[in-house]
């Protein structure tokens, strides 16, 4: 029997690592990820979770240890946030370039200064070019399911790239929600033991990650790009299959809600997507023809789905919990780039909201839609990027 637990996303992430039968965990505490590493310690020391647990001395060493363990042929797990994630920047590249299927929850938190421990996507967005697959979750159930799915995906020989499971600080990390945890037997059938094609093995000595001259380097990078494209094909299939087995499905790359006939489509990520659904329901009652598309996977970026959505709508209102200084929100950038050279593009308005944990509720999103609707009626965007709830 599946078991329903009421717990925080951080504890759920630890349960997911256990359910995935992770063999080596290496992790370092950082607010607001800390309760993941604490829960794993409890589970390992009580014997419930049979894993090696390396309590490293930094996030840099956490991922570097996972690189060694994954290369030596076992399933690995770590977790981090904010400054810990950006400290990992160099080994993140090393992990993906080494084609090691490490899975890592990232509890999205702002970067200092000033010190701020609340939700913000700038940490993981600034790692988007590291060659890691990036999922963004909207609730605790999705955190559990996506961690399990992530191993299925990234251990696939067509992919072999590490994966981040992004979840917002406190909004998910410390919030209790009911989560269904499937039977271990069913998970084991779905996710067999990690059996890599190659590993550090004295009977078949290979040199991993050694020098590559200009004569070969591009080919290796192209293979990584191909692997991302393969992941894009596999994610919807894995999501569907997982849904059939365990009852939860998330729309593959993009979770769409009332998009079919919508004049305005909200593009959001993470928990803002949950708020967007409430806003859509409320606004539809007021007569606004609005829908919501929650981008669940940021790398690989679902540009084909974005194009499909763009074909049948008048306007995208894009809400970003992060800013690329001197440009605009990350999702707005990627969406516009996806639509380049496409005919009949919708109007696009970008909104920066919720930085450093400022609340983005359904009411915030309703205001965004009302403003967008006005601009749509005028046929003109007054402001390319609007900072929401900003003291000016």
């Amino acid at each position: 029997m599946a078991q329903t637990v009421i717990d925080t996303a951080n504890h759920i992430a630890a349960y997911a690592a256990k359910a995935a039968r992770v063999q080596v965990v290496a992790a370092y505490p950082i607010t607001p990820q800390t309760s993941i590493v604490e829960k794993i310690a409890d589970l390992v020391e009580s014997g419930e979770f049979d894993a090696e647990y390396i309590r490293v001395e930094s996030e840099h060493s956490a991922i570097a240890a996972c690189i060694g363990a994954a290369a030596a042929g076992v399933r690995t797990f770590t977790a981090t946030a904010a400054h810990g994630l950006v400290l990992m920047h160099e080994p993140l590249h090393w992990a993906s370039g080494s084609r090691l299927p490490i899975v890592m929850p990232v509890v999205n938190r702002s970067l200092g200064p000033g010190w701020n421990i609340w939700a913000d996507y700038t940490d993981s967005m600034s790692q988007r070019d590291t060659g890691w697959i990036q999922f963004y979750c909207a609730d605790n159930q999705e955190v559990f399911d996506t961690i399990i799915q992530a191993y299925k995906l990234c251990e696939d020989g067509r992919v072999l790239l590490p994966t981040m499971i992004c979840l917002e600080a406190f909004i998910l990390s410390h919030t209790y929600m009911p989560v269904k945890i499937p039977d271990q037997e069913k998970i084991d059938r779905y996710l067999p033991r990690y059996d890599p094609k190659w590993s550090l093995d004295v009977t078949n000595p290979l040199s991993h990650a050694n020098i590559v001259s200009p004569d070969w380097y591009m080919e290796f990078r192209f293979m990584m790009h191909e692997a991302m494209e393969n992941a894009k094909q596999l994610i919807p299939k894995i999501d569907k299959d997982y849904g059939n087995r365990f009852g939860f499905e998330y729309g593959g790359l993009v979770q769409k809600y009332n998009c079919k006939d919508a004049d305005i489509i909200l593009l959001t990520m993470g928990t803002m997507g949950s708020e967007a659904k409430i806003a859509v329901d409320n606004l539809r009652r007021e007569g606004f023809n609005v829908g919501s598309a929650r981008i669940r996977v940021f790398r690989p970026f679902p540009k084909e789905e974005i194009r499909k959505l763009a074909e049948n709508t008048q306007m995208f209102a894009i809400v970003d919990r992060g800013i690329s200084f001197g440009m605009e929100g990350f999702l707005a950038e990627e969406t516009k780039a996806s639509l380049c050279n496409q005919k009949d593009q919708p109007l696009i308005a970008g909104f920066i909201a919720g930085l450093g944990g400022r609340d983005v509720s359904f009411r915030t999103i309703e205001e965004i839609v009302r403003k967008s609707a006005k601009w749509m009626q005028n046929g003109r965007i007054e402001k390319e990027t609007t900072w929401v709830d900003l003291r000016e």
Partner: protein
Amino acid sequence: MESENTMESIKGLSREEYLLKGHIACAGCGPAIALRLLFKALGNKVILVVPACCSSVIPGPYPHTSFAVPVQNVIFEATGATASGVVAALRRRGVDDVTVVGWAGDGGTFDIGIQALSGAAERETNFIYICYDNEAYGNTGVQRSGATPYGAWTTTTPTGKRERKKDMAFIMAAHRIPYIATACPSYPMDFVSKLRKAKRMEGMSFIHLLAPCPTGWRYDISKTVEIGRLAVQTGVWALFEIELGKFKLNPPSNQLLEKAKRKPVKEYLALQGRFRNLTNDDIEQKQIWVDKDWERYYDLASNKSL
């Protein structure tokens, strides 16, 4: 003690070569000699973790390698951490007949890698960490490191370094790991016996290997072994072990406690272009520091424990 009793001649070493022909180390490379000895001492049931250093270049570029054992190359500062991951994975897989060896230069050990190394030591990780110390960032063309000795020319200390070298073996001793040793490829059987002891040791072993480098030290490529011998004979480099907290000088260093038995430091310095700009005062100062080190070795050797 075991190391003397099982001391064998170099002719008795395995004839197998796991550092294969075609490697691209400089002529006269001290670390390359040491690598060959390492494999001969430990055999091929070894997994090497190698950060950015000369040894990430020595095996040659993809699709070739001259290391006949599995190698995990890692980023510069991560040897201790990545080796920890490999050790944990092997334990998880039930593999108990493979030795994990971190093989890092002095930059990757003294400087950028000291945090990961310290963490691995504190966690009592069961592996051998070897710092092959050529006293500069050799791979990038000889820049100063925390291991560069006082007075040495490097490209970032063109008039000679003004600070002294860290005492890495004693930094590791402060971690209370079970086995610490110094070595030099000019004394191959000393190095081999220390490697074998390290392999048997439960927990972490640290071997600090002085590895002369003709390119960085500015001496003739034929003189690598001679320079290493002079380092030991002058007392600039002492061969010792700290086993379970007990300090012991090894031959021939154990014969050099009396100052009169040691050659003057300037004989070692004179052969190397990197010390060309030392003044007489500098040389005298270096001699004083070496003599002070030996006073400490004398105390440690008499008291036996740290």
